[in-house]
């Protein structure tokens, strides 16, 4: 989440491969635009427009496109809420949406590809427990398969049992790719356990889990206090009742 923290790069994927997995344009095709470059447009004078430097994609007038990840509950390196906070603190000009099992990031196409590269090549991404999914995202809460892969109804990525590599055979939304895109081998499960951002423990009763109880109680207390406005509205209420003299 700390934007100054440099994420470890653990694999490298061709730019063209990333473009084809995203599936928004064909590799080599030029970017489609929705408005002329900002330099050529006439605007009425606006302080804010002078203050804020537009991102490269906006300058060119490119389309807004997305990349969406589904993160398995079984120790995926990142999780929707952390992703949202990370995106906000690291990247400019993004719109991100958090759902229970998936996280979408929307930005101008030109910048999207740079961001995608960063997200896919660093330890933010695990080929087995993180899925690149535009549609039919279901699977984050299901058990893993025998090779440790997260469930995917469209099977966008496959595990090669001989080489131990995971490769994408379909793009984000399930259209078959001409050539499979290799995204490296799954991270070690022990290592994932250490770096994961999710809090979970299996087969432990709620009442036996001290840490969980503490968190729930803290939230409960804070919500109750906040809801009733204890301490906050007291003086206000007193004033209304004429009790403040």
């Amino acid at each position, binding site marked *: 989440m700390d934007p100054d923290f440099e994420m470890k790069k653990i694999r490298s994927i061709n730019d063209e491969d990333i473009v084809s997995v995203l599936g928004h344009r064909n590799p080599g095709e030029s970017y489609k635009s929705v408005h002329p470059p900002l330099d050529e447009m006439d605007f009425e004078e606006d302080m804010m427009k002078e203050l804020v430097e537009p991102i490269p994609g906006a300058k060119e007038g490119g389309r807004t496109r997305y990349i969406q990840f589904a993160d398995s509950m079984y120790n995926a390196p990142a999780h929707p809420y952390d992703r949202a906070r990370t995106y906000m603190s690291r990247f400019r000009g993004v719109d991100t949406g958090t759902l229970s099992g998936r996280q979408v990031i929307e930005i101008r196409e030109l910048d999207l590809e740079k961001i995608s590269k960063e997200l896919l090549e660093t330890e933010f991404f695990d080929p087995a427990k993180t899925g690149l999914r535009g*549609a*039919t995202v279901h699977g984050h809460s299901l058990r893993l*398969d025998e090779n440790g892969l997260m469930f995917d109804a*469209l*099977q966008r990525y496959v595990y090669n049992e001989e080489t131990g590599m995971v490769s994408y055979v379909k793009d984000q939304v399930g259209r078959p790719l001409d050539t499979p895109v290799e995204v490296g081998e799954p991270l070690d499960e022990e290592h994932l356990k250490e770096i994961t951002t999710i809090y979970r423990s299996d087969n432990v009763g709620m009442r036996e889990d001290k840490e969980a109880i503490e968190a729930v109680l803290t939230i409960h207390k804070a919500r109750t206090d906040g809801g009733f406005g204890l301490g906050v509205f007291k003086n206000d209420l007193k004033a209304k009742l004429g009790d403040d003299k």
Partner: protein
Amino acid sequence: MEPIKAIDVRIFPHRRLKPGTTEKLLNELLDLEGVLKFLVNGESLPKVVGYGPARGTRVNHPDRKIITVKGKEVELLVSVGDIIVTIRHENLEEFVEKTKAILEETLNFGFDVRVGIFTRTKTTVSDKLKVAYGIEEDFDPNLIGLVDPKTNSKETVKLIGD
């Protein structure tokens, strides 16, 4: 028909099973005594992409395969999550013991085996509808609890053995 005493055993592996493993497991379990029926449960796998820009494209999921159980071909429609076996009550102890041994040998990850009632025991309105309105002409009462009310049992139920 004379009523029999039957009970369910639920096999819950800690990972989703591949078709090969499922095939091996089912074949070995079928050899045990007292087995009446199997219910193979899991997340259903679509044949074609249902929505999104790729709608209509074939999925070709590697887990949606045809497996051979005791010489009969069975198409797996799901990614196998758990297997519920209905057995004769008198064979229960022996069955559970042997099942655990088989599972330990076949699987290299954890599993749970629980005994209880995991399938429906009474006929529902939809089951009756199937018969009364001729939706399925010869609905076998033995299939209660095996078939999803909305599906055609011919597609999802396979008869193996005698």
